[in-house]
Every structure is written in structure tokens, then in C-alpha cells.
């Protein structure tokens, strides 16, 4: 497999991103190493080919943002909005992730080995997120579709204003958000969860997770709307 390296200590981020957009052939599967990322923002955003990008170090905001098809691995921690609005492919953070990890992701798989900050999976639209550690408050806020697997604990207001996304939590939650509720796990849940854990390389028993989903009481903005006195 063809390999290439970008050293961000000596070449510009824009040069690299432009190459990743325009310098690759349809279906290109090459392996790209990014050296000295040094916390730069917007590394490997808008990928559109099934390449593998390995970032050796810490990434800033929006690493792997809006990813399609590609596999991005961050050998370090990631800043705000890692894999935001991802469509497909995968992003794997070996360290920790900051706020808004996987925000609005429509597809693909985001794996965070460590903890994630506030609002992990906010407005999720069909993507899957597996967090090895814990997540901060307001995670899963207004999440519409997809799955969030949290192997550690969750902060306040987990799953506030959830739509159809489902959260699986192994540890404890400080508080659930408005309209979020614990529900019984079904066989389908166990199957989905087992598959996600296996894809993420996490060795937990699906039986140790609880399901959190929407009570759907906020779907219509005022249940009393038709009253008349």
C-alpha cells in the first residue's frame, strides 16, 4: 500500500488538506502519516476517499471534521468537535477528546479511548460514538439518530431533549436531561451494543450497560395545545 508523510513542522496545513481533497484518485486507499500536528486545528477535514490518516500527536479543533469514507487515527488527544458532522468512515482518538466530540455526525464511527468533554454526541444524526472513559455534561443533547456507548460515567443532563438516538451507559449518570429515560435493554440492543463494542475494540459485557432513550414527551411542543376554556 502506498504510504506518504506530511510533516506539519515543515509543510502547511492547507497544503496537506488541499492534497487530501484534490490530489487523490477516486477510491484511493493510501496510508498517510501526519507528523508534528502540535495541536493544529482542522487537520484532515473534509476527507472524501477511503484513505487512512494517522495523526501522530495531539490535534486541535475539528480533526477529521465532516469525514467521508476515510479512517482517521489520532495518536494523542483531540480538541473540540473531533469528527463533527462525520458522514461515514471512522475516527479513532487514542487519548482524550474535548467538547462536542462527534457533534451532528450523520454516519461513521467515532471511538474515543479516554474521556470526552461536554456535549459529546450533541445533535447526533445517525453516527455511532463509543467512549472508553466518561463523558461530560449535556452529552447526547438533542441527539436525533445513531448510538452513543459510554463505558464510564456521564455528567449532568445526559440525553437532554433526545429524539431517536439511543445511549448505552455502563457507569453512573449524575442526572438525566429533560425527556431522557432509562429503558429496558432488548435483544436488539444487546446485538447493536456488542457489535459497536467489538468494532471499537472494547472488551465489556453488554449486559453491564443500561439503555437511555427519549420518553417522547417533547415531540409536540405543548400537549395542552388543544385545550379551550
Amino acid at each position: 500500500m502506498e504510504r506518504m508523510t506530511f510533516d506539519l513542522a515543515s509543510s502547511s496545513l492547507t497544503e496537506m488538506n488541499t492534497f487530501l481533497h484534490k490530489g487523490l484518485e477516486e477510491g484511493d486507499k493510501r496510508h498517510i502519516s501526519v507528523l508534528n500536528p502540535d495541536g493544529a486545528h482542522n487537520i484532515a477535514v473534509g476527507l472524501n476517499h477511503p484513505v487512512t490518516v494517522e495523526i501522530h500527536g495531539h490535534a486541535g479543533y475539528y480533526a477529521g471534521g465532516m469525514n467521508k469514507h476515510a479512517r482517521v487515527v489520532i495518536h494523542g488527544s483531540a480538541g473540540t468537535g473531533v469528527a463533527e458532522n462525520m458522514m461515514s468512515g471512522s475516527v479513532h482518538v487514542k487519548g482524550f477528546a474535548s467538547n462536542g466530540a462527534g457533534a451532528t455526525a450523520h454516519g461513521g464511527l467515532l471511538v474515543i479511548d479516554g474521556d470526552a468533554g461536554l456535549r459529546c454526541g450533541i445533535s447526533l444524526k445517525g453516527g455511532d460514538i463509543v467512549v472508553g472513559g466518561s463523558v461530560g455534561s449535556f452529552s447526547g443533547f438533542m441527539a436525533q439518530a445513531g448510538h452513543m456507548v459510554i463505558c464510564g460515567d456521564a455528567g449532568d443532563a445526559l440525553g437532554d431533549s433526545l429524539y431517536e438516538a439511543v445511549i448505552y451507559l455502563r457507569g453512573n449518570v449524575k442526572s438525566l436531561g429533560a425527556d431522557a429515560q432509562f429503558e429496558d435493554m432488548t435483544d436488539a440492543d444487546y446485538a447493536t451494543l456488542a457489535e459497536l463494542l467489538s468494532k471499537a475494540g472494547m472488551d465489556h459485557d453488554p449486559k453491564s450497560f443500561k439503555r437511555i432513550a427519549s420518553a417522547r414527551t417533547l415531540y409536540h411542543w405543548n400537549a395542552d395545545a388543544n385545550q379551550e376554556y
Partner: protein
Amino acid sequence: MDIKPVSFKRVSREESASFDRSTIDYIQNAAAHGLYEIRGMGAKRKLPHFDDLLFLAGSLSRYPLEGYREKCVTKTILGTRFAKKPIELDIPITIAGMSFGALSANVKESLGRAATAMGTTTTTGDGGMTPEERNSSKTLVYQCLPSRYGFNPDDVRRADAIEVVIGQGAKPGGGGMLLGQKVNPRVAKMRTLPQGVDQRSACRHPDWTGPDDLAIKIQELRELTDWEKPIYVKVGATRTFNDVKLAVHAGADVVVVDGMQGGTAATQTCYIEHIGIPTLAAVRQAVDALEDLNMKGQVQLIVSGGIRSGADVAKALAMGADAVAIGQGILFALGCNSETYIQDGKHISAIEGYDALGTQPGFCHHCHTGKCPVGVTTQDSVLEQRLQPDVGARRVKNYLKTLNMELTTIARACGKQNVHHLEREDLVALTLEAAAMARIPLAGTSWIPGHNGY
């Protein structure tokens, strides 16, 4: 002897100014339903506006141009600061962002065709980009909104410019709203929502907080589009001076300022009427901010919110805007609030539809119901047929053409060979409020309230 009750004829029919019939109706509705009113369109209250400004045309001291024959350039370029491919418009009048969901697919197609014919842009809305509007619009602005409904990198790449929406004039600080009756299967799928759900969009972006983050978000969109496409930032008019400065600081190519007369498809009335500042005041503050940063001409300003006529466009440009955006005016051009809709050349009465909504042409603001009697703001498969794309495209094109003719006529009268040469010195104000807000002297005086110590 009979004692007659004393009758004060003058006061027995006296309406209270504080508790007039409209206020009493509001209170009684609140009491009956326990629910605030949601409606479409913009502020209905009377506000200081472009109507309160007048042009001083050419005479002896200035030299006018021949109204029809002499050259008057309307070309407008947006996005010259960072984008490799700025937007070139033939006219400085654009079509404001309105969502598929609020509007039907037929309407979106009409707008694209009209804008393309007139050499201007259309804008997507909270609900993603439809093929109808992409295919019919030569130049399309793609909005990046807090909800990110249907937002995807393919459409970012397909767009000609990106507009990061912070807020809109009808409801600064509030997210979008689309009631369940408009969330049909196609809208639901585009927005990844259950069908029929009352959809409330987020009011803040999910992946950034504050102007320093916005700078990085804008950089992401630039990196993603290889620095080719202009990035607009749209704000609802409130603390406009500071907001425009922060948008420029964050790296915007173009700032869009939407005043409180700007429309909406569905928002609480208390928002529409009580939040935000008038467009007139906002333009002034926005231009102040650009001048303060020495960015006038480098960062372009688009003004929207209650722009109706060519005179409004000319006044906005004279005050320092580079272009305007129109939403409600476009809807009226399509037939909104018209007594009839047009089917294959024939006018058909829509009165029954207005009756069913409890309203009449001229007053209707029922966009939120999805039961638009003329097929403009609906997702109903029967009603949407009432707006035929051919008719819609033709009417919007006519409207834009008329505005542009009025604009150039006024510019020529002021002696300008280019509409962008219209300037503040060409204007006077009719009212104290307008003079103070627009910082333009009261007609016949050199008085600007609050200026030079007066």
C-alpha cells in the same frame, strides 16, 4: 319623577390605549389556551424604516444622469477578502435564506430560476439543500445553521458560498421552528427527524461557542473548500456594532445583518415584535463597525429585514450596504397574500383557504400552519401544486427586475454611474427617530439628534 341613567356617549365607546381590542384578544386567547401565539412573517408594528428617509437628487449643485439611457452599473462582488472565488452578482439584490420545509420544492425551484435569470443568488435554509434549488440556481449560498439539519460536506462542496447563521432578525437568540404539520416524509428524512414531530431547532451551534471558536469554525470551512468559497456570517440585529466587529474578527468575508422586520416561517409573536432592532438602526451600526475596523470595502455587508422596493434597496446602499437580501418581498411576489393563485394561466380564488385559516388576503401570517392557500409556504401535496414553478419564476424575476430599475433610476437621479456610489450625503431624514438611528440629518436642517453635542 323618573330618574334616567346618566349616559356619557363620548366615553361609552372609548377604547383603552393600553388595553385595546387587540390586547384584550391576546389576553383572552392566552387565558383560553395557556399557550403563546406562533405565527409567520416579521414585525407588524410600525417602526422607523427606510420610508423615513428621502433622497436629495441632482439639481444645480449636483448633476443628474439621464434616467433611461446613461450607464448605471449594478454589478456587485461579494467575498473579496479571503475567497479565491468571490461571488459576482449582476444586481445587488439577493434572495434571503428560506428553508425547504418552510417553503415547498416548487417555490425553491422558482427562486433558483428567477435568481439565475437575474444574475443573483438564492440561499438555502434550515433544512438542507434540495436538488431542485441546486439545479435551478446558478449561484447558491449554503447555510450552516445551529441545527445542521441535512448539513453535509458534499453540499458544502456543491455550494458557491457558505453562510454561517448565528441568528435572524425575526428571532435573534432563537432557533428555528417547524410545526408537525409541515414535517412531511421528505422533510423528516432530510432533517433526520420523526415525521410529524414539532421540530425546534437549536439556537446555538453545537460545535463552537463564542467568537474565538467561530474563527476556527470558519477556518474549517475554508480548509474544507480549499479557501475557494466566500464565507458569510449572518446575525440578527441586536448589538449590531459589536456583533459585526466580532464576525469580521472571526474571519468573515461577508456579514449579513437582518433587522427585526425580517420574516420567519414560524416563531413566537413575542419574539417577532419585541426582540431585535429595526433594520434602519442596524445598517448604521454595521457600517460603523466596518469603518471602525477600516474594513469597509474589504468585508461586504448584506442588509435584510423589510426591504420591499427599489427605493429601499437604494437607501440601504446609500447608507453603506453592498447588497440586500429579500425574503418576504419575494414571497409576496410569488403570490403570498394574493386573492388568487394561478393555474395554467387562469386565476383561481383562494379565499376559501384564507377563510379556513380565519384570515383574509392582506393579513395572512399563517405560514406556520402549512396550509398556505396559494401554495407558497406549505408541504401539503395538494396545496403545493397551487404554485407552478413557471409562474413563480416569472413573477419573482419581474419583481427583481422592477427593483433594479427603480434602484438605477434613483441612482441616476443622484448623478451616480454606479449604484454603489450612492452615499449618505444623498439622504435626509423625515423623522427625528430616523435621523437619530440612521445618523442622517433631518430634512431641511443639519440636525442629527445626539450628534455634535445636540
